[in-house]
């Protein structure tokens, strides 16, 4: 085990991505994720990688498309308005079955919005975002260490399933400093060969083509069915969540990312005051841990769910679908870059949920 270090979320994400095999990064600056490209700009060269500060977000995602098509472990990062600009490219990457990693350090919207933390890109991240039938594997880490652990393996997952992987963070997660243990550098020369990559050499008569255009309806339909078979496999194997004090809980709080930590403190305060609360935290946002929610909802001790988000309510729709109406789901959110405190959630539970 290497030594513990104090790192900012953004910097830890960049370092963990490199240790996980990232060798190409293209991006365009935007607050609150600028430490990622800044770190990449010097660090990638130390490991023989390539860094491009592109002329726009659209260019950055298309550079990632190209690099991924050539077989590189490629990544881009941005924040909400920039991620919106990248949606066309992400859809093409999904259609061309290319692996890559995309970071979204979410800020308040719509429009240019603000620069403070938000979670209002949940729909965009989990339901597709760009045009067409596709999904990404989406993670919502809640600590700097969890960012490191997820990024370290994100390229393996992207390669294994040939899909884009998104990390959905927020401004707080990017700026916060915490102690982390960094894993060893992966040996990129020993990664499995990508038999589909357009490397321009030794392919003989079997030309490798990276493409997302399917004029024949039957061919496009079979691509879509193949992608969705893959998503079903991902749901089976990759779904992740954390349960905290849910065993005897009457009120189950649910939240993801940094808000889940605020909710965890709220659970502790509620418990100190004799209210049996617990926390169910999705770690993968797509695939959503629906089975876990239904299982918890079926417990006789559970009375209600309370979903907390930095939005007007987006993940709550997945929570409601998952619990199949077995238990009511309340919502408490803040928006615009405002962040709730644990005490705010406690107050909501006391006055609105337990009234």
């Amino acid at each position: 085990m290497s030594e513990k270090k104090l790192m900012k979320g953004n910097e830890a994400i960049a370092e963990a991505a490199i240790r996980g095999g990232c060798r190409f990064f293209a991006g365009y600056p935007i607050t609150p994720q600028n430490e990622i490209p800044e770190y990449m700009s010097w660090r990638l060269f130390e490991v023989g990688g390539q860094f491009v500060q592109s002329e726009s977000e659209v260019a950055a995602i298309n550079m990632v498309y190209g690099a991924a098509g050539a077989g590189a472990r490629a990544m881009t990062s941005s924040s909400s308005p920039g991620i919106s600009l990248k949606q066309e490219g992400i859809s093409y990457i999904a259609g061309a079955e290319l692996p890559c990693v995309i970071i979204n350090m979410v800020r308040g919207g719509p429009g240019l919005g603000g620069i403070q933390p938000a979670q209002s890109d949940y729909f965009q991240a989990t339901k597709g975002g760009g045009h067409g039938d596709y999904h990404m594997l989406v993670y919502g880490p809640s600590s700097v260490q969890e960012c490191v652990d997820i990024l370290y393996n994100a390229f393996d997952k992207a390669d294994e399933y040939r899909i884009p992987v998104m990390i959905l963070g927020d401004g707080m997660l990017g700026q916060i400093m915490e102690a982390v243990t960094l894993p060893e550098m992966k040996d990129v020369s020993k990664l499995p060969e990508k038999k589909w990559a357009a490397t321009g050499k030794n392919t003989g008569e079997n030309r490798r083509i990276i493409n997302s255009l399917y004029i024949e309806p039957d061919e496009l339909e079979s691509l879509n069915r193949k992608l969705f078979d893959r998503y079903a496999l991902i749901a089976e194997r990759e779904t992740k969540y954390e349960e905290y004090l849910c065993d005897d809980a009457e009120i189950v709080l649910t939240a993801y990312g940094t808000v889940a930590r605020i909710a965890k403190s709220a659970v502790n305060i509620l418990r100190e005051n004799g209210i049996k609360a617990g926390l169910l935290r999705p770690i993968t946002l797509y695939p959503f841990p629906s089975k876990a929610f239904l299982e918890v909802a079926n417990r006789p001790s559970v009375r209600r769910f309370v979903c907390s988000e930095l939005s007007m309510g987006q993940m709550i729709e997945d929570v409601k679908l998952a619990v199949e109406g077995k238990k009511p789901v309340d919502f408490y959110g803040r928006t615009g870059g405002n962040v709730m405190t644990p005490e705010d959630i406690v107050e909501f539970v006391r006055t609105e949920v337990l009234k």
Partner: protein
Amino acid sequence: MEKIVIAGFGGQGVLSLGQFIAYAALYEDKAVTWLPSYGPEMRGGTANCSVVVDDEEVASPIIAVPDTLIAMNTPSLLKFEDKVKSGGLIIVNSSLVDEKVKRTDVTAIYVPANELAHEAGNVRTANIVVLGAYMKYSKLFPREVMLNTIEKVFHAKPKVIPANQKAFDIGYNL
């Protein structure tokens, strides 16, 4: 658990004061979060950071009720004074703050940090003088741990270590 809010003007070393506490927590194998304010208000305006130190895991990095407030300027005292826990600690940089703490249920410490740092030879160490006073009154970490932390954090700039350790002791011995 110790929850600290540190606030002042941008450039007063408010964020780095918080980082010294965070590094000390790291070296002492405690869990810690350091969360800065970020955005346009930092340029010439106010800056603040929230530091939470705990034995095992820090859940919320957001602080509603700080155990300790370090107010490096007047707006910071006005903004955060009412939020401090009853029985908590407020450290005021009295070089820049003329107001007194109105609360009677907290411990108020006044540190003329700029003057003391100036006398010590480097006005830029005013934040470290305050750090020394904070460690004396909170007993969060022993003096030796903090002197060590200063050495480790400045390992790339060894020339500034003695001045910062001196500033720490001035605050610690108030």
